[in-house]
């Protein structure tokens, strides 16, 4: 597959899968404001994912639309990082995942605004302003729950620890990304980890939480989500997300 197409699918699939996860919170948020906020963040990510997938389809040149790509690919053809396909867990786990992702996403998009590919740069410039609000919100929640009650602190610390091994993929590169970095199209994910850790340290300090430090990471050696290797959870998510288009191909509103 064309390297740019694959890179665009990594960006788009990660957005779409996380949007789907956040959508599961509709009607289940702990309070109305957060129910609305979770799904608004999901909506932003869905919109961004659509722009990446649309562009992926155009570059691929086989006439596949954003809908074809979202609804008619099997799990091994999805290129999202594993972090975003993990089940929501409780509100602390959802916000811990969001915190890890949002801070990395913000750094990634900021770097992509400098891409030599004009379309990549303009999508990133559009998305980064939205993600700035996501990053602020999830950091606020990590602090609020970490520096909250004993119960909320314990839950947030446990969530940070459990999700930690899934964060490595966001900062690892393979030959596909390296070739695009060389051309100035992709951001070098390896360079984003130091500033990401600095943000985590600042937020964890304020939240009275301990930032996990293990260097053992899922999916960074022999392939992970970006290469189409997924946890058992993605198939179940896609079964629900794709059901209608699989059973009634081409169905429209």
């Amino acid at each position, binding site marked *: 597959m064309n390297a740019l197409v694959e890179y665009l699918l990594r960006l788009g699939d990660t957005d779409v899968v996380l949007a789907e996860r956040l959508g599961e919170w509709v009607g289940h948020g702990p309070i109305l*404001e*957060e129910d*609305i*906020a979770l799904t*608004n*963040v999901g*909506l*932003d*990510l*869905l*919109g*961004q994912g*659509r*722009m990446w997938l649309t562009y992926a389809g155009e570059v691929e040149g086989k006439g596949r639309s954003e809908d074809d790509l979202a609804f008619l690919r099997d799990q091994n053809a999805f290129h999202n990082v594993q972090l975003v396909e993990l089940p929501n867990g409780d509100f602390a786990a959802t916000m811990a995942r969001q915190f890890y992702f949002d*801070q990395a996403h*913000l*750094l990634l*998009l*900021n770097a992509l605004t400098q891409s030599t590919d*004009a379309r990549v*740069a*303009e*999508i990133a*410039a*559009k*998305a*980064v*302003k*939205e*993600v*700035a*609000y996501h*990053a*602020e*919100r999830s*950091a*606020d929640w990590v*602090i609020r729950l970490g520096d909250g009650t004993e119960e909320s602190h314990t839950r947030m610390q446990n969530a940070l620890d459990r999700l930690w091994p899934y964060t490595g993929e966001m900062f690892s590169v393979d030959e596909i990304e390296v070739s695009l970095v060389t051309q100035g199209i992709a951001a070098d994910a390896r360079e984003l980890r130091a*500033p990401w850790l*600095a*943000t985590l340290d*600042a*937020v964890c300090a*304020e939240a009275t939480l301990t930032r996990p430090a293990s260097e053992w990471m899922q999916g960074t050696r022999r392939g992970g989500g970006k290469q189409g290797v997924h946890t058992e959870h993605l198939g179940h998510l896609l079964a629900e997300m794709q059901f209608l288009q699989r059973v009634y191909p081409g169905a429209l509103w």
Partner: protein
Amino acid sequence: MVTAEQRALASPAHEAQAAVTVDLVWDILAAIPDPEVPVVSIVELGIVRAVSFANHHVRIEITPTYSGCPATEMIAAMIRERMAAVGIQDVELLTVLAPAWTTDWIAPEARRKLTEFGIAPPHVVGGRVDVTGISPLRRAKVVVPCPQCGSTNTTLLSQFGSTACKAQYRCEACREPFDYFKSH
């Protein structure tokens, strides 16, 4: 007052087509309310970026406010509908992403209308929202005056309100909750 749209509607379609001008198209667009904030038009919100007309072909450039805004597709449908109503069939709608939409494009008059509608208007950010992300907690906290009573003693309840573009606030003086159109 008879608007340009009403004038065009009053004449047969073929005559209306002959009378199409860029100004007429802008007038029609200026009468289309935003689906989610109907007190302001899509032109006042800065969604319409350019209009051109040549050889009976109207070309309109629009830009989405937020990537996932569900109103974007409805706005495109409304534009086609209003143009068809005055006999303009050959309409090309082009979505442009750059430069990215900013609340700085919201006209002063529209800011006044938003306040009267009960939505605190966005602050002018000079086209730059802080996206550095290194210290998200250090972002300058803006003071958002209550659109009901004008008090500056207000509290942020959530970064997201009834739509992605708005945050929820509460006025500590009059105790009313209200929406703030976020700077973007």
